[in-house]
């Protein structure tokens, strides 16, 4: 028969000391855990605040709405269904464009102001725009909303605002949000224009533009056609043209 040896006083003292140290460790660990959790919660709170401020700034700021390069160009000139100027003008010039076409944007910037100032404002020419969509899906989306802008008598300002914000071809940049910003910059009711874009009227406008371009042999943009009165149109200029050469061609047409 055996029995546990009775611990000595020294052993008892060491055991109690070990238990006290273990308890102190446990207490310290618990305190440290609480302190870390508190720090983590504070960090999460500050992070949430920072994110909220950034999200608000991101929603309300960002890139400014595109501005039309020639915002005042069309001021005071009547526009009806995409046709700009005096109905009684002897010549009707039609510009065929693709909104994604960079040459169209350059023409709008460099050539159009003189054309509008010298021929449309003076009542010599009424100017019509027709939007083609041969470059890609972004062109079609843009052309459809342009049809909505034409319905509001704001096609030309819409074209200008679009060119001012034009992105890389077929990169998918023509989103509803992009179109809304362009519409806002052009003074177009974006909701109404987007609603029109999905309807039969926009489809008819696109179909008519494509059919007329095909019939006239237009295979590049921008292309300008000219017609006298109710006469048949013919191609006046195709591709890049400066204001002077276009003016010379128009003057020749007016002298006929």
């Amino acid at each position, binding site marked *: 028969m055996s029995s546990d040896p009775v611990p000595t006083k020294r052993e008892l003292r060491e055991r109690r000391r070990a238990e006290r140290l273990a308890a*102190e460790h446990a207490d310290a660990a618990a305190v440290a*855990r609480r302190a870390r*959790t508190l720090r983590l919660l504070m960090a999460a709170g500050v*992070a949430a605040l920072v994110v909220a401020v950034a999200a608000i700034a991101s929603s309300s700021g*960002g890139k400014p709405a595109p501005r039309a390069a020639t915002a005042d160009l069309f001021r005071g000139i009547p526009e009806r269904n995409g046709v700009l100027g005096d109905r009684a003008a002897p010549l009707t010039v039609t510009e065929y464009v693709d909104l994604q076409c960079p040459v169209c944007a350059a023409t709008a910037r460099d050539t159009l102001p003189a054309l509008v100032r010298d021929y449309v404002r003076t009542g010599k020419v009424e100017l019509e725009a027709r939007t083609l969509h041969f470059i890609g899906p972004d062109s079609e989306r843009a052309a459809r909303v342009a049809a909505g802008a034409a319905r509001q008598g704001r096609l030309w300002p819409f074209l200008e605002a679009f060119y001012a914000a034009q*992105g890389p071809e077929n990169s998918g940049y023509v*989103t509803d*949000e992009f179109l809304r910003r362009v519409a806002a910059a052009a003074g177009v009711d974006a909701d109404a224009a987007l609603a029109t874009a999905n309807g039969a009227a926009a489809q008819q406008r696109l179909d008519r533009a494509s059919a007329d371009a095909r019939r006239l042999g237009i295979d590049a943009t921008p292309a300008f056609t000219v017609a006298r009165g109710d006469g048949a149109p013919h191609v006046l200029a195709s591709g890049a043209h400066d204001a002077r050469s276009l003016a010379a061609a128009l003057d020749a047409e007016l002298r006929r």
Partner: protein
Amino acid sequence: MSRLRAASAVVALAGAAIAAYLTVVHYSGGTPVCAVAHGCATVQQSRYAELGGAPVALLGLAGYVAILLSLAREDERARTATAFLALAGFGFSAWLTYVEVARLDAICSWCVGSAICMTLLAALSITRLLGAPPSGPRA
């Protein structure tokens, strides 16, 4: 170096590489190579691509660099700083992912990659902060 710290550094480096690529593309005026048709260009050209005039990609790069710097030290303050930065990055990535899906209707695979990095960093940094050994009782 602890495993959590090393893993965090690897993930932060991956995130920094993504952010650096998107920053270079932003300033060069190009379009990111994207697995989802048009998604990256749409996101990059949206108004959400900039914050206070600075490209969001550049802000992301700064965030990843700050996380890497906070990982250089192994103490309580550094662990808390890493957790704060990772949580802020995670929150902002979540907001941008919401914007992509709900407002832009476009997904940028690079942005999703960065959001995954920030999510991993948040999880790693919280685990590292809460799981660190106590500094011990002072004798």
